[in-house]
């Protein structure tokens, strides 16, 4: 039998997960939060299914310290797998306990009772009896072992088409985001030019009539009128003088000197290990790179905070309210129990962006104006300039082919900076932007290599293919020139881009069709073969200017194959992607439309990264691409038509999919560009300049 879901072991009390309210509603509690992917809708469907109630009865309450289960951070495409499994099991228990109550009240055997939309019927049941008639007291029950769950063959909601997200109407027509919450004071930050600058002078008079908050190099201003706060912040910025401290970064590339000083961790059983890298002879080599990328949320980060009688209440869109609470407490020097954090949706979040930082900023301002509800919002310039960046990567591939056109040896060396710098209570430093600027500063954690399976730089560095001899190595570069952290997929995008580009190159060298070449190395993996065949069928195969790539996210979650079709303008050298096909196996499908939405969103975002995006810097390490024209993203007329096929596996557990397509889309694009032009672009983004350079070589 399967073990109990982790989250239930941590929070066994059933009342913490499921509550029935008198008006015929069910409240489900989750520690996971909505980061713009419709996750709460899917969790609600799981609960409604297992409890046998109508979907509309279930409301999901999420992310509120002290009120919802502590489920850590919402990341890594794990919410359905972890919180979904916990809520399913909790709902199965709730159903069972309610039926026991019914059986006792009716004096009948529990086995004879059935439930439809919370109404209990059975032989000899004459009165109308519902769950809510039986919910006069809490469950008072601790989950210690597994309750058998509803057979998936009996599902009537999960996996069905036509599920609607109830949150969309409000988002389209009303106040729905943390940015929209009412406040008594509006605050804006006055930022230094870069992380390396500190304040030396400020004209405090220009801040009047606003409330100026200065703590070391942390400068903010608050005013009851939002636009006034903004104007004042600009005035103060104009008067501030800053000094660069320390030395400027030594370039931004993962150049030879950085690669030579990197710590090498060959993977052993998937785990980075402090052993010497095995020398493996290879005859084919290639290098693939990506630049620093931004999350570039469509909304600048924002948070609300109020400080009252030594206690702090924060509303923010952090992915990890529980660790955030601990770290904010540390910075403010107060007891974590004095802080309450409630998650309120922000705009789409694709990893560790400025949401946590804004929460600390709001808290620092709120502390200076006790009793006032403060709304602190970043500017667009600040968001682009100060969010933690998705780290650059440098991946070196090597392989040899045997006489039959198979890979006989394979090396993969992934170099890069940390992908893991979320604020965390156990860390050696404080990973919140403003902490380093305070009069009594908290330095950020010195980056350390993540040594678990499938994290950071080596996520998806292990190929999905089976090769007779392979050496896959993580190379950790400690001295990142800029602040980096988790961006959708972590290392998976760079690694899968490299693996799948290289597989195409090898197929070409071997004179074998790229599809056939992949099949040869995938015989051990029927699920991967199935998505491969599915995408070939839906797209009609690799005709014309098309490329293919596939991967299984983290080598254990959703398996996705992508075919991209490109057209390259002979005049402008611009690459367009008119069409894209996706096939994915994410285990049991909860909400087909929601899953499709996630897969397609990841694909579009990856196209944007690969075609257009690169962060630029000045010599001090300050981001210079601080708006949408210097950091362009894919627009509507550049977006592909996408056709997605889902391979439902009702008998298997559902798998997270929010990050599954970023790698395969990147590889499919590169391979399609090769099919169209004969040019292999290893350096992202594939801009017209890059294409021209490659053509000139």
């Amino acid at each position, binding site marked *: 039998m399967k073990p109990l879901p982790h989250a239930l072991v941590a929070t066994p009390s059933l009342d913490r997960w499921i509550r029935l309210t008198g008006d015929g509603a069910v409240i489900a509690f989750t520690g996971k939060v909505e980061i713009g992917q419709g996750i709460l809708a899917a969790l609600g469907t799981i609960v409604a299914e297992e409890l046998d109630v109508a979907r509309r009865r279930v409301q999901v309450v999420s992310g509120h310290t002290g009120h919802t289960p502590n489920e850590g951070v919402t990341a890594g495409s794990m919410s359905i797998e972890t919180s979904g499994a916990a809520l399913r099991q909790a709902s199965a228990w709730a159903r069972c306990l309610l039926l026991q109550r019914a059986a006792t009240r009716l004096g009948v055997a529990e086995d004879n009772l059935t439930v439809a939309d919370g109404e209990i019927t059975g032989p000899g049941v004459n009165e109308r009896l519902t769950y809510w008639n039986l919910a006069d007291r809490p469950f008072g029950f601790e989950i210690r072992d597994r309750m058998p769950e509803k057979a998936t063959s009996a599902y009537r909601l999960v996996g069905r088409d036509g599920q*609607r997200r109830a949150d*969309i109407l409000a988002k*389209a*027509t009303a106040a729905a985001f943390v940015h929209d919450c009412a406040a008594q004071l509006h605050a804006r930050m006055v930022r230094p030019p870069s992380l390396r600058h500190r304040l030396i002078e400020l004209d405090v008079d220009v801040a009047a009539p606003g409330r100026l908050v200065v703590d070391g190099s942390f400068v903010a201003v608050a005013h009851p009128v939002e636009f006034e706060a903004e104007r004042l912040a600009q005035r103060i910025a104009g008067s501030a003088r800053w000094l660069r401290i320390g030395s400027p970064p030594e370039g931004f590339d993962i150049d030879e000197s950085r690669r030579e000083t990197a710590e090498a961790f060959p993977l052993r059983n998937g785990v980075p290990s402090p052993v010497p890298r095995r020398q493996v002879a290879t005859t084919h080599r290639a290098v693939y790179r990506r630049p620093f990328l931004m999350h570039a949320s469509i909304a600048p980060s924002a948070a609300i905070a109020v400080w009252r009688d030594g206690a702090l209440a924060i509303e923010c869109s952090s992915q990890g309210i529980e660790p955030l609470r601990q770290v904010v407490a540390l910075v403010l020097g107060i007891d974590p129990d004095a802080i309450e954090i409630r998650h309120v949706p922000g705009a789409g979040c*694709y990893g560790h962006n400025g949401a946590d930082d804004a929460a600390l900023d709001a808290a620092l301002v709120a502390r200076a104006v006790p009793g006032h509800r403060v709304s602190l919002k970043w500017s667009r310039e600040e968001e682009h300039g100060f969010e933690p960046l998705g780290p650059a990567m440098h991946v070196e591939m090597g392989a040899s082919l045997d006489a039959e056109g198979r890979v006989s040896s394979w090396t993969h060396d992934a170099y890069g900076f940390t992908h893991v710098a979320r604020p965390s209570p156990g860390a050696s430093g404080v990973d919140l932007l403003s902490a380093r600027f305070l009069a009594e500063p908290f330095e950020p954690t010195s980056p350390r290599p993540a040594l678990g399976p499938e994290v950071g730089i080596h996520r998806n560095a292990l190929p999905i293919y089976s090769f007779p001899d392979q050496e896959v190595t993580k190379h950790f570069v400690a001295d990142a020139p800029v602040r980096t952290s988790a961006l959708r997929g972590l290392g998976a995008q760079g690694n899968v881009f490299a693996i799948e580009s290289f597989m195409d190159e090898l197929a070409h060298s071997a004179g074998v069709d790229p599809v056939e070449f992949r099949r040869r190395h995938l015989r051990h993996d029927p699920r991967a073969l199935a998505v491969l065949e599915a995408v070939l069928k839906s797209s009609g195969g690799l005709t014309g200017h098309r490329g293919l790539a596939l991967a299984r996210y983290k080598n254990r979650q959703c398996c996705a194959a992508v075919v991209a079709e490109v057209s390259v303008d002979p005049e402008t050298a611009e690459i367009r992607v008119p069409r894209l096909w996706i096939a994915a196996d994410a285990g049991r499908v909860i909400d087909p439309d929601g899953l499709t*939405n996630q897969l*397609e969103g990841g694909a579009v975002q990856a196209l944007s990264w690969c075609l257009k995006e690169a962060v630029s810097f000045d010599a001090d390490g300050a981001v210079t691409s601080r708006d*949408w024209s210097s950091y362009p993203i894919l627009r*509507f*007329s550049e977006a592909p038509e996408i056709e997605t096929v889902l391979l439902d596996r009702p008998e298997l557990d559902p798998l997270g999919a929010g990050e599954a397509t970023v790698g395969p889309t990147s590889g499919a694009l590169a391979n399609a560009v090769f099919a169209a032009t004969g040019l292999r672009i290893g350096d992202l983004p594939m801009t017209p300049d890059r294409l021209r350079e490659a053509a000139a070589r």
Partner: protein
Amino acid sequence: MIRFRLNGEAAQFDDSERDMPLLYVLRSPAVGEMTPKLGCGIEQCGTCRVLVDGEPAYACTLPAGAVEGRHVETAAGLDTPVRRALIESNATQCGYCLPGIIVAAEALFRANPRPSGAEIATALDSQLCRCGSHPRVLRALLEVAGR
């Protein structure tokens, strides 16, 4: 007081706010219309889109005084086939870009009730979406166009 109409209803704001960007005035407690969002403040993303007398405008830069005596429409007031189609087909992810997209699409459909796919995409190029909802927004709007 500066008077204007907001989604068909009378609305007003103080004279002193004449030079403020319309977005800030709409979102102020006095008016309380939170549907248009701030995304960039410099006419680059379209999250602040509104219609002024039927014409699309960037509320983040338009001085509020410019709407005196005119009709401002936001996504909240546009209960139209365009909005219904986008909502009913879950044509968004986080939804932050959606109010602006509804406004831009509505402006297009008023001028051209049966736009082609290319016309829809071009009309929406003023609107950024970071979640990658583009394909489903375009699919939903093509259906409204009956194509």
